[in-house]
């Protein structure tokens, strides 16, 4: 074994997986995990822990894996994370824990993400469940949204003895883990549902089909339903569009719609009723993880798929692993290309998309080089479906119906980073609702901070 290299992880063959919705990465088996665990040099001052938003004791759990004490490894992770099977799969480890790993200076870092995934999957398969606190402290907390920040906040508060109810607007809990991230990256029945069940086993109640701000307001939860504090983890759900001509044509979708149809409504399966337009030739506009998810979903539904992105490959916001997987599967990248107009036929359907070539200029506010149009370089891509994946912004439904809750000009709720405290007494917030669209793990970090803030607030009462 080459100590400078990760133990390779088994994956479904790209040609095969391009036609199914089964998980792409198969993960480590016990032997592979224990071999990879030996690569960790157990630094005294572990940089990886500092790189983890929820500060998992990484060398601590890897040490247990190395010894074959996987149950103990699961306990070490559970101290810091409620969703390890999710995080092991979707965290951007390359820029967090693994990005800081000392092994990575001369060779490849330890495969921390795959080890976390192994431990979480092992714990689930071997029936290890979190322990419910013996008794509650009688204090009721409402959590809005059952995505990563809400689940984390609820789990942490339940462990401290609070009676927690999560309110979820959709009919299934999980937030972006359920409606956004596809099955082939994050299996729902096998991974997401068991992790949500683990939060329930801590004593958390989840009430679905409740749209806060419509079905009931935050003020009513506090004044009429006996909740003493509220955590808002409602995410950033509103899709953005480009505002170009033809964008309301049939066959133009937001990535949110496309992914919700496929993931939440399971439109990719024949036994579910919700339809989805598969498309023969699909353009996905945007370069983030969501764009990759939409592109790879369209590919699996049988389309030829182009990712249309206005900057170059170096600026793609998606994880390197996702871009790599997408390419392996046959997604075509039309880089330095920006859409100008969508062509529409008499029946209202997409017939093509006019684009222009771009070049990179000086860095802009984001630090990335600004894309500039190359005059006279317009051309037409022949597509029948366009998926807009340009990002999302927070839903104003909650802020608009809650007295005294301040938001900024991007409609994000203003909250203190370390506690989640908002401008309204007893109301805390975190995750995409505060930061705008970010990652699962950052939302979890914010959920954890919110739980700390709420505990401090209610302990003082």
């Amino acid at each position, binding site marked *: 074994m080459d100590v400078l290299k990760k133990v390779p992880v088994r994956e479904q063959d790209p040609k095969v997986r391009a036609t199914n919705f089964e998980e792409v990465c198969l993960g480590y088996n016990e032997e592979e995990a224990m071999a990879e665990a030996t690569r960790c040099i157990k630094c005294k001052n572990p940089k990886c822990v500092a790189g983890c938003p929820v500060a998992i004791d990484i060398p601590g759990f890897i040490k247990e894996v190395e010894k074959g004490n996987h149950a103990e490894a699961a306990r070490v992770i559970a101290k810091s994370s409620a969703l390890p099977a999710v995080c092991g799969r979707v965290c951007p480890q390359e820029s967090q824990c693994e990005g800081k790993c000392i092994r990575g200076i001369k060779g490849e870092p330890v495969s921390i993400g795959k080890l976390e995934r192994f431990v979480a999957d092992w714990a689930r398969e071997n029936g290890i469940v979190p322990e419910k606190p013996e008794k509650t402290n009688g204090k009721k907390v409402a959590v809005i949204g059952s995505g990563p920040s809400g689940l984390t906040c609820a789990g942490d508060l339940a462990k401290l003895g609070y009676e927690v109810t999560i309110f979820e607007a*959709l009919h299934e809990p999980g937030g972006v883990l359920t409606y956004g991230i596809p099955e082939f990256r994050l299996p729902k029945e096998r991974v997401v549902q068991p992790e949500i069940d683990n939060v329930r086993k801590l004593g958390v109640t989840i009430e679905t089909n409740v749209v806060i701000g*419509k079905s009931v307001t935050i003020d009513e939860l506090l004044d009429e339903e006996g909740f003493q504090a509220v955590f808002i983890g409602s995410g950033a759900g*509103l899709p953005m569009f480009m505002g170009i001509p033809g964008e309301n044509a049939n066959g133009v979708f937001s990535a949110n719609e496309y992914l919700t149809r496929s993931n939440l409504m399971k439109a990719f399966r024949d036994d579910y009723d919700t*339809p989805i337009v598969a498309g023969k030739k699909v353009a996905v506009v945007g370069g983030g993880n969501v764009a990759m998810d939409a592109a790879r979903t369209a590919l699996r539904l049988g389309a030829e798929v182009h990712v249309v992105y206005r900057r170059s490959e170096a600026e793609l916001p998606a994880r390197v692993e996702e871009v790599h997987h997408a390419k392996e599967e046959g997604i075509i990248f039309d880089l330095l290309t920006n859409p100008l107009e969508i062509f529409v036929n008499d029946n209202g359907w997409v017939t093509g998309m006019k684009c222009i070539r771009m070049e990179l200029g000086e860095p802009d506010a984001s630090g990335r080089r600004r894309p500039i149009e190359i005059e006279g370089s317009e051309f037409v891509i022949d597509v029948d479906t366009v998926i807009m994946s340009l990002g999302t912004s927070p*839903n104003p*439904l909650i802020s608009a119906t809650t007295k005294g809750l301040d938001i900024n000009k991007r409609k994000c709720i203003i909250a203190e980073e370390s506690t989640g405290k908002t401008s309204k007494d007893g109301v805390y917030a975190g995750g995409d609702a505060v930061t705008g669209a970010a990652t699962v793990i950052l939302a979890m970090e914010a959920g954890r901070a919110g739980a700390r803030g709420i505990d401090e607030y209610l302990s003082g009462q």
Partner: protein
Amino acid sequence: MYKILKAEKLAEKIYLMDVEAPRVAKACQPGEFVIVMMDEKGERIPLTICDFNREQGSVTIVFQSVGAGTEKMANLKAGDYFADVVGPLGNPSEFVKEDLEEVKKKKYLFVAGGVGTAPVYPQVRWMREHGIDVDVIIGAKTKNLLILEDKLKEQAGNLYVTTDDGSYERKGMVTEVIKDLVVNQGKKYDVCVAIGPMIMMKFVCLLTKDLNLPTVVSLNPIMVDGTGMCGACRVTVGGEVKFACVDGPEFDGHLVNFDEAMKRQQMYKSEEGRAQLKLQEGDTHHGGCGMCGGDN
């Protein structure tokens, strides 16, 4: 699970159900809607709220069976359950939020078409509860498709019924009744609320624009989540893109781009039709739907 307390067939392919949904019943206002799911594998179907009973904790929904999903829903009976009912969604009608004295000064004309009569009912009931007499026109293709006539008669000031084929009461389209009331009888209205098929709302709006009569329409486009998340329900209103679920469902009818909205409504027609075919043929189904592989 949401229990069905009452299920009734109102007309050919039109069904009424009272469903237990305490949170919706407590919070809902005229103009808002719900999304229902029959079972785990069903579609999320947006339906306007026809009535509600806050004490009983129930809402009344009315739907027409048009696709595979609603066809299956039509078979549900009292005592059965919906897997999911979420709401209320959308915004209440404008007059609910307006100063009551201002509303009382205005003369309202409600125009209901087909199954669109259902969402008109709670608005007219609200008017009656606040002591306001309104005129109501109901239009139906034919006598057998007319719904809620008696209920509306109780709540409306004047009720005018018209059928396209003349099988009951007046003969002709709702637009002809509007013309008759305003032009021939010289009635004055300040606001028209028109809810029905997209094509009816389009023609009502073309007429009321000529008559200089401000008109509110309620749109029920394709939706998935109903909370602003997917953008499937986007409509162009006054040149701006709006989401019917969170910005509507009611809009200034004179500003709505109906032609675009009608095209968007057709989007899944072929897929829906295919699902319908599969459902009807049941076990004997072996191709033709384009989805099962039986054609190959």
